């Protein structure tokens, strides 16, 4: 199989599709899938995958196939998420919950350094990350793209984050192609999906009785060694292809990314910012669920006598008032400037900073916004009447 390297394209061109036509893909029966999960454990991986958590499909440790959300799907729309029973037993018959893989590569809370008081002053120490390697099971195409975006943030030519780097290098990415799309999905506009074509070690497509398996890396291939995997039959490949096509066909949301950087940076005083500020609660939900948002702060956590200090990195958000604190005041003192910061950073500033859009079109920020603010609609409103 041809190996490709690419990145989400801010201009929204679609990526080339790889091929799991006859001969190119393997096939594993659902009845054999437990042996695959066991294999991951035997190889020392901690497998994280989709499972039911508090009324949603989230990511957590997966040991048994029964941990997967079999027979469940979600209905998502702006400001709304509902778990719903499927009329079949599909294992991956949903799209995305509120969690993303950044929880594991860039955890919400992480000690990044320590300070210990000695007689002759502070001793400043690195910390070791002891987390075993992750196997991520069920990574969607937009999420692969999101991981590539965060790679550009945390692992660039100037600086790399050692904890992110270690976890990322060790992680096995087992993608599962979407076979349906939510009302909130717009990966096709961002050039990131729905088909998984890059950055995976293995990519599966679910069919009724099993999964087609594409290999994306030597590591992916080695994980499969010895498992009951055979070549996919033409009918199985066709079934997988039509399932993937169904996802593509269901995507209805669009974001026009034409000249989007200039559109937004050229309209920093657009009345739409006032309009959205009327609705936005500045609750930070959108930034917490976004798989690419990376802003963080470091808290100083001292033990009781102040002799040891942990420096704890925590997700932060441009919607927090304190985020823009400077010299005793706030730079972005109102919701208007905070929402504008979020959207212009995501869709414009990111291009300057990391040569990619910060949005992969997963739609989480739309679903999990308590008041249903939809960034694609905000951009469209600005495009409608630019200054």
């Amino acid at each position, binding site marked *: 199989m041809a190996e490709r390297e690419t990145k989400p394209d801010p201009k929204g061109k679609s990526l080339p599709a790889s091929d799991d036509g006859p001969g190119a893909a393997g096939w594993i029966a659902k009845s054999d899938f437990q042996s695959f999960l066991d294999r991951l454990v035997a190889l020392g991986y901690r497998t994280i995958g989709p499972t039911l958590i508090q009324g949603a499909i989230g990511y957590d440790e997966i040991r048994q196939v029964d941990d997967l959300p079999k027979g469940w799907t979600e209905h998502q729309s702006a400001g709304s998420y509902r778990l719903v029973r499927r009329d079949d037993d599909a294992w991956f018959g949903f799209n995305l919950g509120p969690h993303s893989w950044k929880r594991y590569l860039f955890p919400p809370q992480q000690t990044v350094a320590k300070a210990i008081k000695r007689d002759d002053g502070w*001793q400043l120490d690195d910390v070791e990350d002891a987390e075993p390697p992750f196997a991520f099971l069920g990574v969607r195409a937009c999420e692969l793209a999101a991981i590539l975006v965060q*790679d550009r943030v945390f692992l660039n030519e100037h600086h*790399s*984050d050692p904890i992110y780097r270690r976890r990322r290098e060790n992680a096995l990415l087992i993608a599962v192609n979407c076979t349906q799309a939510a009302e909130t999905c717009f990966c096709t506009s961002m050039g990131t999906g729905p088909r998984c074509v890059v950055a995976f070690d293995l990519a599966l497509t679910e069919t009724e009785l099993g999964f087609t398996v594409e290999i994306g890396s030597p590591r992916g291939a080695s994980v499969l060694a010895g498992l009951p995997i055979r070549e996919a039959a033409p009918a199985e490949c066709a079934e997988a292809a039509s399932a993937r096509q169904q996802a593509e066909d269901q995507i209805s949301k669009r974001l026009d990314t034409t000249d989007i*950087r200039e559109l937004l*940076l050229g309209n920093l005083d657009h009345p739409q910012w006032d309009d959205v500020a009327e609705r936005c609660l500045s609750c930070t939900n959108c930034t917490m669920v976004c798989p690419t948002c990376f802003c963080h702060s470091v808290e100083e956590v001292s033990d009781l006598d102040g002799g040891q200090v942990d420096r704890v990195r925590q997700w932060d958000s441009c919607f927090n008032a304190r985020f823009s604190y400077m010299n005793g005041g706030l730079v972005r003192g109102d919701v208007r*400037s905070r929402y504008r910061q979020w959207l212009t950073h995501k869709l414009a500033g990111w291009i*300057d*900073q990391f040569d990619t859009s910060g949005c992969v079109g997963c739609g989480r920020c739309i679903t999990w916004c308590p008041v249903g603010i939809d960034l694609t609609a905000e951009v469209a409103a600005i495009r409608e009447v630019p200054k």
Partner: protein
Amino acid sequence: MTPSANPVAVAANPWLARPATIESITREFTDVSTYHLRFADPEIDSAYRFRAGQFNMLYVPGVGEVAIGVSTGGPGRPTEDGPPTWDHTVRLAGQVTAALDRLGIGGSLGVRGPYGEPWPLDSCAGDEILLVAGGTGLASLRAAVYELLAHRDRFPRVRLLYGARTADGLLYTSEYDAWTAAGMEIDTTVDRGSPGWQGHVGVVTQLLTRLRPWDPERTSLWCCGPEVMMRFAVRAALARGLPKERVWVSMERNMQCAVGLCGHCQFGPEMICKSGPVYRFDRIERYLNVEGL
């Protein structure tokens, strides 16, 4: 790269500072002090280098970090001989600076850096340099002053226009004689006069408007101070025919990680810790007048 791209290791933990000690403190005014620091590890101390305009993160464990421009110049502590210390002029403006203040001489802290883009000493070689500073903004230019004066062969004229609110808000006054002797022309102004003040009263922009001789073809302007002051000063210079491409400003935002990872110091599409703090004016001009960016 393979599809499961494993990016290459580049640098160490961005949050890890180096232990340092406050060797001495110069009390500039009531709420501004210059801390003369030295790294605890002599090897690091002698290997440390920075370029004028860059900043360090000063870390007080248990309290936090603050970004401060390195203001060491010439012999470090210009009043004494000996190897240079790493000087940081700090205004009391929050928890970390208050904690620094409490540390006192001999106090232990962490330092990491230097970070950011420096003043354009190389690309402006051959130009007449006009420094325009407001308040503690001179701290970011102090290292540049020493660099410029050490290389008078490359800078035919070096001038400083410096304004503060009151006469006792002017930084580094004890060094002005030495700077003048080394060939710098200094003009100061204060917003409010006081008994004994015989210099200009008014904003620094007025000095700029009246500056003679004025050769916009050969002048480069480096400006550091409050944002409002920089806007007016730059506008005055442009009005006198200075091209935008010969104007540099040093911006300030809340720098936290200092390596473009934490997102706090954004200004439009810029991360000031990485692509700044020193910018050529035309790069950020369109964002300077936007409220709440």
